[in-house]
């Protein structure tokens, strides 16, 4: 490896300028919401659906990052150590996602057909043992309590090792990651059924949970890349080098393909078998959301596939950041297509001021929480027994 001059790390400060920017972003988001409610007077289901969509995306970023960290810990991989604190701090936003979900609770009746227990058809009646409010709420609470616990506890162990280094912490980190993965493997699917699939209450697909998971994972990787590149630029993480970006780029590339693979698996099998109970989901989307439906595939698969194919593309920070941003927007679109057709319907759904403006609010809150958490610990884990491996490796 060529000798690089690594600049002195700049200590991270959540300064005034940054706060102002985030405040403006949050203001834009809130303004869009207020205009949508009072000036445009959009139908209530469209407002609630947007709140729901953004809450989900907010959660996905934290949960996806936590998954990325734990799965790397379990795989005994070490390259991620130099930017591991980014994932840790992203994971700590999970409990706040719960608040955003709760804020959207008054709209549940607008979003979920199965909540109208007074007139359910035969099929929905048969689903009531699973799709009923009390059980749904219990599941909601269990997911958030456990996810938040794992995010908090893993972070605690990781930070503790900075001050009183001991090998036992690595073991504890691994064991806890194992428990998290087990819970995550089940809850990521069931949560996707609860919060997304049951919007189209009659429809079902066994792959749905994994499909949503893959989208979440890609979106989280995109955000990890964006934050890491920014931190590298401002020398907050000077030890992150092109090799790390290259590997992150590979993840974005590989899992965008994986997402497309699952997309295709679900679509192709339903299209081929042509069973009305199943095709109804795609018929609605292909007929009434034609442009978005195909754009979804282009942005989330074709773009990263060709843009990140070459080796050099993944080692170019600015270029990689742009592709990550595009893919992140693409997964917003994917979520839009998962929610709107069922919850709002094509007569009322469209992309307007609300859809574009509101995410800024959530983004601002996400980043604020992230920066606060990030500032509380050292930017790079210290005394990690594998630390040397993260600073001294090379891609082929």
């Amino acid at each position, binding site marked *: 490896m060529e000798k690089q001059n690594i600049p002195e790390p700049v200590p991270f400060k959540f300064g005034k300028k940054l706060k102002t920017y985030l405040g403006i972003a949050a203001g834009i988001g809130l303004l869009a919401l207020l205009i949508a409610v009072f000036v445009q007077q959009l139908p209530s289901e469209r407002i609630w659906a947007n709140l729901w969509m953004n809450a989900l995306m907010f959660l996905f970023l934290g949960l996806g990052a936590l998954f990325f960290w734990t799965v790397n810990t379990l795989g005994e991989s070490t390259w991620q150590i130099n930017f591991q604190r980014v994932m840790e701090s992203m994971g700590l936003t999970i409990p706040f996602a719960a608040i955003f979900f709760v804020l959207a609770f008054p709209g549940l009746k607008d979003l979920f057909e199965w909540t109208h227990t007074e007139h359910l058809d035969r099929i929905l009646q048969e689903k009531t043992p699973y799709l009923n409010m009390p059980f749904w709420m219990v599941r909601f609470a269990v997911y958030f309590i456990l996810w938040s616990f794992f995010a908090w506890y893993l972070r605690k162990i990781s930070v503790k090792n900075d001050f009183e280094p001991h090998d036992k912490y690595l073991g504890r980190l691994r064991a806890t990651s194992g428990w998290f993965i087990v819970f995550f493997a089940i809850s990521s699917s069931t949560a996707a059924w609860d919060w997304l699939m049951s919007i189209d209450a009659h429809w079902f697909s066994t*792959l749905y949970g994994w499909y949503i998971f893959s989208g979440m994972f890609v979106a989280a990787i995109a955000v990890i890349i964006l934050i890491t590149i920014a931190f590298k630029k401002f020398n907050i993480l000077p030890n992150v080098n092109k090799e790390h970006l290259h590997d992150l780029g590979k993840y974005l590339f590989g899992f965008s393909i994986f997402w497309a693979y699952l997309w295709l698996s679900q679509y192709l099998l339903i299209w*081929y078998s042509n069973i009305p109970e199943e095709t109804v989901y795609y018929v609605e989307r292909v007929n009434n959301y034609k442009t978005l439906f195909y754009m979804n595939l282009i942005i989330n698969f074709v773009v990263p596939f060709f843009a990140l194919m070459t080796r050099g593309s993944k080692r170019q920070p600015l270029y990689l950041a742009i592709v990550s941003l595009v893919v992140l927007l693409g997964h917003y679109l994917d979520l839009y297509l998962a929610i709107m057709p069922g919850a709002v319907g094509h007569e009322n759904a469209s992309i307007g001021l609300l859809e574009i403006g509101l995410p800024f609010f959530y983004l601002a809150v996400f980043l604020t929480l992230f920066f606060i958490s990030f500032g509380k610990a050292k930017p790079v884990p210290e005394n990690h027994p594998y630390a*040397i*491996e993260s600073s001294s490796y090379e891609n082929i």
Partner: protein
Amino acid sequence: MQVSQVREPLINGEKSYENITSDVMAPVRAKPGKLWFLGFGISALVMLAGFAAIAYTVWFGIGTWGVNRTIGWGWSITNFVWWVGIGHAGTFISAILLLFRQKWRTSINRAAEAMTLFAVMCAGLFPLIHMGRLPLAFFIFPYPNTRELWVNFNSPLLWDVFAITTYLLVSLLFWYMGLIPDLGTIRDRMKTLWKKKAYNFLSFGWKGSARHWQRHESMSLVLAGLAAPLVLSVHTIVSFDFATSVIPGWHTTIFPPYFVSGAVFSGFAMVLTLMIVTRRALNLQEYITVGHVESMNKVIIATGSIVGIAYITELFMAWYSGVEYERYAFINRAMGPYAWAYWIMMTCNVISPQLLWIKKLRRNLTFTFILSIFINIGMWFERFVIVVTSLHRDYLPSSWSMYKPTWVEVAIFLGTFGLFFTLFFLFIRIFPVIALAEVKSVAKSSARKFIRKSSKKSKPENE
């Protein structure tokens, strides 16, 4: 790159490059022992018995099998999917683990890839025999033939032909590419002239020059890039054979990723079964260490648990869908006449691998060996459950039926084991079982003595 001193070494003992070459080459140079002849002889006999059963099938027709109008796919498709699945580990290890920079793959990739090839060969036999007319097997290839009959491009069965042929070709190329430098090394060590010539021919006159290495490495990278998506595509398309239908128990969207995971699961089980014996028989314990076995066991627990979640998701969705046929298919699986197969599958695939969460068991060779056989059995029953249990209750109760294999089907299945082991026995005598050049490439960083040295050196820098 520096390796942390916490990491377990990949090569035990104080090994120099010279030691590595002579240790790995020992079985190639030595005369085979009695045990080898015994094993090879038995395998070859079983293989011949299998070929006889195939000849019997071709001569008398598929009527000699137990399949009937309702259950048209019996053991043969079960065996086909099972063998293809086993053929996933090799390329997974070489391509996907390469992408994830898992260095432990270097000690096992050669044997696993060889196993992949042999397993895919065994798998390929079954659809061919099942078509009933072996001499007309070339009909599966798309070409404008004299009767202007084309193959059905809409059929996943045809996609299978392409997927598996491509996979076999790329795996073969990849495996052979890796062998070339090692064959050159063997040639240099051979004393007999004809052997020298033979290995020289096999290694394409490998000289080990910088130019040769450069070509070799870029070619390996291209093939690895091609092979990685192929690992996923093969079993995806095998799963399409079932999932594009409208048969309850077959048609479900989770099939593609779940089949892939199951394939890697069974493939690793077979690698463990073989390698735990091979490392003992060929004295390779210092290269294929307990740490390697543990790593493989971790892959097993990950893929096995994914399979378990897929089973439960299917079960739940069958209920959640509200479709009575779906519901019946799954109740029938668990409680119908073939329930015993379902519970064998559940025990072997979902419950028993969970024991590997215990570190002691992960590192216990005897336990791992027994467990790997359990998984092999469980994964065979998974395919049996999917094929036979889903088919034996048709939409019309008048078509309901049961299925029992005849001796011909059993003999063909056993025959493929004969074929598999015959090839494997030949492989360990002709080729180096461990990828010499690749193991040497990690020896500097990951052998026991070097890890200790580098950690001593790097310590003062850190503090």
